[in-house]
């Protein structure tokens, strides 16, 4: 079966979640474009968006409509040609509306897993819990035809393990989108030893069709993305442990967040990122990796404590950040969780100033991440920034360089351990999936 044929009937399970809803938008637009081709006029398309939550599905309906409108607005040049035979559609607004109607007309929003039955491609994006996932795959195996292909969005559970436990016989591939899937270009693709070659080809072609950057990762728990992020986060936590005697816990969290964001020129600080992902999810991925890799170092008592206190971070339905290690107003950190007080310590200007003074200044000519992102001289400016840090004898520079070195070690180990095929793949994941300006494996330090 070709990809075009498979795209006639597709299911997303866990469709109302953050990842599932984004995958749903990508699929709906791709399927609509197929449907609009004159040769496909007689074909019936069906996109089954399945979730256990009715409320979630209501939200998904609104999200899908809003996102498809945005997609249509951006691809209006193409859409005008696709609708050129429709004499009744003249203005852009009419064409955009028609596309949204067309792209939602074949969507079936449901809580009934049985609708997965006729799907040729099934995207799984449910909770990152291997027992739940295995149970679901077992059910779907029974419901679906023996040539159905499954794509899981797991970011940590080995694909071969899931396949074996559910008895999918090579019909499963890891297809790990990054959050939010509509915007992030990266998809980590993981084949298990069993994955059939036809599915490998379908995955590669689909990636091209969705204009995603596909980076292969080997079937080792955590893959490249979490393989790096978890260890990076744990290192930051260990630095906080080291610094908290001098700066207290909130001060140490502030420092490491600022070092990673400003000194290392990342889009957000490491603790803001952990909050964005969700502290509970961070904990859950650590557990998966600890189990499958049999590596006891992948553990953090701080993370466990936070989850136990029900401080979990994550995102609101509108994408804004929920409070975690940091407290947010308009997505900007305004406070830091104090373990002692079990409440947020509000960042005050003089407190910040005092700590910033101890860290020392940023290098001359400092440009923040956002400005560098679009700078034509980015490479040169990055090099100058890190060269300057090396010449500065400040606490900030020392912490930054220590972090930069550690981050590189983590990346290199992913290559040594065979998780990534090359340093380039590691760098591609961090630059495309995490919006870093530079890969962790570099010669800056």
């Amino acid at each position, binding site marked *: 079966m070709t990809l075009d044929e498979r795209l006639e009937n597709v299911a997303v399970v866990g469709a109302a979640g953050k990842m599932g809803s984004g995958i749903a938008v990508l699929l709906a637009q791709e399927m609509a474009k197929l449907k609009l081709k004159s040769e496909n006029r007689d074909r019936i398309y069906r996109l089954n968006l399945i979730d256990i939550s009715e409320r979630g599905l209501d939200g998904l309906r609104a999200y899908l409509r809003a996102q498809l409108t945005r997609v249509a607005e*951006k691809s209006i*040049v193409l859409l005008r040609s696709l609708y050129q035979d429709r004499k009744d559609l003249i*203005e852009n607004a009419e064409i955009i509306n028609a596309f949204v109607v067309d792209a939602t007309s074949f969507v079936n929003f449901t809580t009934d897993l049985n609708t997965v039955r006729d799907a040729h491609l099934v995207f799984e994006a449910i909770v990152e819990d291997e027992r739940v996932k295995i149970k679901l795959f077992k059910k779907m195996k029974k419901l679906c035809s023996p040539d159905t292909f499954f794509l899981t969005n797991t970011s940590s559970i080995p694909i071969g393990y899931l396949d074996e436990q559910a008895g999918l016989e090579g019909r499963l591939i890891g297809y790990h989108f990054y959050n939010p899937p509509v915007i992030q270009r990266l998809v980590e693709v993981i084949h298990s030893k069993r994955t059939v070659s036809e599915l490998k080809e379908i995955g590669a072609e689909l990636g091209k069709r969705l204009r995603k950057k596909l980076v292969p990762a080997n079937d080792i728990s955590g893959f490249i993305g979490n393989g790096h992020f978890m260890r990076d986060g744990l290192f930051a936590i260990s630095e906080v442990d080291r610094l908290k005697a001098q700066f207290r816990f909130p001060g140490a969290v502030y420092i490491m967040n600022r070092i990673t964001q400003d000194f290392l020129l990342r889009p957000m600080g490491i603790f803001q990122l952990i909050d964005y992902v969700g502290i509970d999810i961070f904990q859950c991925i650590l557990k998966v990796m600890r189990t499958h890799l049999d590596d006891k170092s992948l553990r953090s008592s701080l993370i466990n404590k936070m989850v136990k206190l029900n401080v979990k971070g994550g995102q609101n339905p509108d994408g804004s950040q929920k409070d975690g290690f940091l407290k947010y107003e308009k997505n900007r950190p305004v406070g830091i969780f104090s373990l002692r007080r079990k409440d947020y310590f509000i960042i005050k200007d003089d407190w910040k100033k005092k700590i910033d003074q101890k860290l020392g200044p940023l290098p001359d000519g400092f440009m923040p991440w956002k400005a560098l992102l679009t700078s034509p001289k980015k490479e040169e400016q990055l090099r100058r920034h890190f060269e300057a840090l090396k010449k500065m004898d400040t606490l900030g520079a020392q912490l930054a360089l220590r972090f930069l070195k550690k981050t590189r070690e983590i990346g290199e180990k992913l290559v040594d351990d065979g998780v990534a095929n090359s340093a380039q793949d590691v760098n591609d994941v961090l630059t495309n999936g995490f919006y870093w300006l530079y890969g962790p494996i570099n010669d800056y330090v």
Partner: protein
Amino acid sequence: MPFLRKKVFACAGYYTVSLGTGRKEFHPKKPRPGIEHYIKEAGLGSINQINNPENIDEGIIGNFVAERFCKQGNLGGFFPMVHETFLYKPCMRVEGACDSGGLALVTAIKTILADVADVVLCIGVEVQNTVKAVYGADYLAAADWFSGERKKGHAYYFPDQFSQRAGACFEKYGHERIREGMSHWYVNMIENARKNPKAQEYHNTNPDLYATAMTPPNPRVFCEHINVFDCSKVSDGGAALIFASEEGLKKIGVDRKDAVEVVSYAQVQYDLTKPPPDLTEFTTCKIAAQRAYERAGIGPSDLGVLEVHDCFTIAGLLAIEAAGFAGPGEGADFVKEGKTRLDGEIPTNTSGGLIGYGHPTGASGVRQAVDVVNQLLGRAGDFQVKIDSRRPYGMLSSMGGNDKTVVAMIFRRVE
């Protein structure tokens, strides 16, 4: 016998900031002033420069398409809001696509020539940031023959019309030559706008404008031969200018030396249902300029300042040719040689033009007149050019649609 059967003067010009992307105070998601605000600000800006606003007899409001951008018609109804003494005085709105402002100027002058008014307040206005560009493109497409042309047209209808003109010029005169000319036009306009605090590009700090202007087009999301920097802005803004007879100037307490004289104008209309006769020239603009020169008894070399309708960079080049400053295809060289710059042979669009100041469509013709008048009066501020006493004339050319509706108008400093 002069073209105008009595003397008509223009004075007390004013225009608002051109609000839209590029301005620091602009935020697409925050509430913004509505169309009535711009009518009032522009009107007040003008009448605050005269002594007796109560002696203004009539109002004319030029606007293209408020019915769609703002869901607002009957714009004449905002005239009494500008000043309390305007209540129960006549006002009407005129429309001619992006030349609405030009038609408003002409209508104001005709009202004085008709001897039914001595003083007319002429306002141009447009508010366009109410919708995304992808939707606004359709509202603006009304400037062409909608039922005949829109369906087969591009998503960005007018940008594509001018992209086709650019493509035709590339083919006829050489890609590099014309492309470079277009880019130099962009640089020229942004540099002028940086001297004009009301320009949409006033805050532009791009260190390499020319490189930006040379950005390759991306036909997948926009047009084949032009990029977004070749386009004028999506803008909210208003402009106002007072026209008066000799008697009228006295009535509003304006000295003749604070006014300029309208020497001639030409209003030229092409058939909306027909394609342009030649994609590589502005035929209608050319005829308008020729008639305006003829009626004034002057030629291009008598002009000290020029305003053209550069809705796109290619339009800037073609307008220079239509105004008689360069032969076919030579507009690009003329601009590249710096002859349109503030210190050049014929300073053009000194406040930034439609590319740099912005293009609140219905206001543009009036805004152009205000700039010509201010230059001739020596009141253009940081972008004032030296007006040689041997070349005391200034001309504007305002265009609606794809060279369909054109007004050319010539002013002269009062000695």
